[in-house]
């Protein structure tokens, strides 16, 4: 039973975020503080697990993925209520009579600076549930229900195009210079953020354009999934505007951007500095893996990233631990916080791990590619290592 229950962690965190929003005021920070706090300390204390349990009830696991859609819809409703005025859908009156919570007073006590916490809390929840599960679902490229749900989940962070670029771009070009979502050695996180976001968007557009040409459709038409993706995000912004005015729309946009930046931090550390001979298959060594117990439970085994890229056709519950794969120094949210707040320190922390990767994991061709990457990295320790060998 525990092996199924572990995947409820993300929902628990969504509940905490919603509770924080409903309480208003400084409680808006609740989701952010609890999620980062619990994950950072939890990963530190609970450590790794190499368990690879077999799952029989795959329908149950699939239902857990789809449950994200109503949960995040509910979260958006609460977000719009707190950001707006009036009593959207009678939520305030309903909660007052059911639970005795005075949403109106909580909203009145919420100052603009409290919203920083609210936006960061919603951002991390959008990423952990929306982006992560959107990723899992949109790998099922011919399952129409999965694609529909997945793309709407991704649209919450302005990233429905991820469903195109991730599968047909990132998985193919992984750990090569052609991949906008592989961070280069020595690359500053915030510069990577700009390169990755714009590069992925451009790549998604080109891939879609190519597909439309193959099928004989015009680029500027409703057949275009890239454009439809942006229309979906625009529709969500418009819904927030209607429900909660321009301030509500702004709060949603900022939450979406916060969520998107979380995805990019994850993209950054998942493949930071790794190189691959483009002629050879993607192997477990081309991703930074993590077997941290809590990261994997909450993120539906996303941290078992080495297996995900080596066998992209595996479902999340099938992902194996790959003990010998290159391993991240910390759990997912710890790495994320370091990448955001101390990006230079994080790069320094990764330098010896990269050098170890070159020695232990790289093929002779990859060692040459790595040596070139070290020379161009601007990181003295990497450059010196190249001269020594």
């Amino acid at each position, binding site marked *: 039973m525990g092996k199924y229950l572990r995947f409820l962690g993300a929902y628990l965190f969504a509940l905490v975020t919603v509770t924080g929003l409903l309480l208003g005021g400084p409680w808006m920070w609740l989701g952010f503080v609890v999620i980062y706090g619990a994950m950072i300390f939890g990963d530190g204390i609970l450590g790794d697990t190499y368990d690879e349990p077999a799952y029989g009830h795959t329908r149950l696991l*699939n239902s857990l993925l*789809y449950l994200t859609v109503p949960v995040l819809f509910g979260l958006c409703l609460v977000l719009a209520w707190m950001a707006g005025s009036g009593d959207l859908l009678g939520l305030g009156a309903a909660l007052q009579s059911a639970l005795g919570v005075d949403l109106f007073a909580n909203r009145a006590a919420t100052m603009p600076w409290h919203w920083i916490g609210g936006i960061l809390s919603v951002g991390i929840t959008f990423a952990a549930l929306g982006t992560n599960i959107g990723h899992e679902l949109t790998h099922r*490229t*011919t399952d129409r229900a999965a694609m529909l749900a997945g793309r709407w989940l991704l649209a919450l962070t302005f990233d429905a195009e991820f469903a195109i670029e991730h*599968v047909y771009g990132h998985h193919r070009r992984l750990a090569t210079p052609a991949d906008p979502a592989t961070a280069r050695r020595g690359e500053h996180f915030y510069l990577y953020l700009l390169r990755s976001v714009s590069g992925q968007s451009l790549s998604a557009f080109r891939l879609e354009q190519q597909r439309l040409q*193959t099928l004989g459709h015009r680029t500027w038409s409703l057949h275009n999934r890239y454009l439809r993706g942006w229309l979906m995000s625009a529709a969500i912004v418009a819904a927030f505007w209607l429900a909660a005015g321009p301030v509500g729309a702004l709060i949603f946009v900022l939450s979406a951007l916060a969520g998107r930046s979380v995805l990019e931090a994850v993209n950054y550390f998942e493949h930071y500095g790794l190189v691959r001979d483009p*002629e*050879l298959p993607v192997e477990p060594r081309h991703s930074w893996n993590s077997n941290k117990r809590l990261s994997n439970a909450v993120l539906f085994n996303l941290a078992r990233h080495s297996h995900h890229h080596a066998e*992209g056709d595996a479902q999340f519950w099938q992902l194996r631990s790959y003990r010998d794969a290159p391993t991240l120094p910390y759990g997912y949210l710890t790495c994320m916080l370091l990448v955001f707040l101390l990006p230079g320190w994080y790069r320094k922390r990764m330098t010896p791990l990269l050098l170890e990767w070159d020695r232990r994991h790289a093929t002779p*061709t990859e060692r040459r590619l790595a040596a070139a990457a070290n020379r161009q990295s601007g990181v003295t320790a990497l450059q010196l290592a190249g001269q020594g060998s």
Partner: protein
Amino acid sequence: MLGGLFRKREPGPARVSVEPFGWEFEVAPGQTILQAALAQGLPWPSRCRVGSCTTCRCRLLEGDVRSLTDTSYVLTREQREQNVVLACQSQPRGPVRVHLERMKATLSGNAAAEPVAADRG
């Protein structure tokens, strides 16, 4: 619409024959041609396994497959017209015969493909 939740199992394994090598193997229901081939230890070329690099592509000569991906992103119109399919994204519907044409092109440097090189040499 709820295909992912209530996918029907296709009955029984399907036989796959691969030209020009004369390989024969069975693909279990729910398995792809590539998964079955690699499980047999056959050196079928592959890289990404998510239907994007097209390294595993082959031409369908006989029979029918269920494609797990939208190949319009990765195959050209000509390839699609010539019944090119991606082994990593194809589940056979009954017995199929395919032609694997990429073998020679990917042999160099592909460790997984070396046994075949040895066979031919």
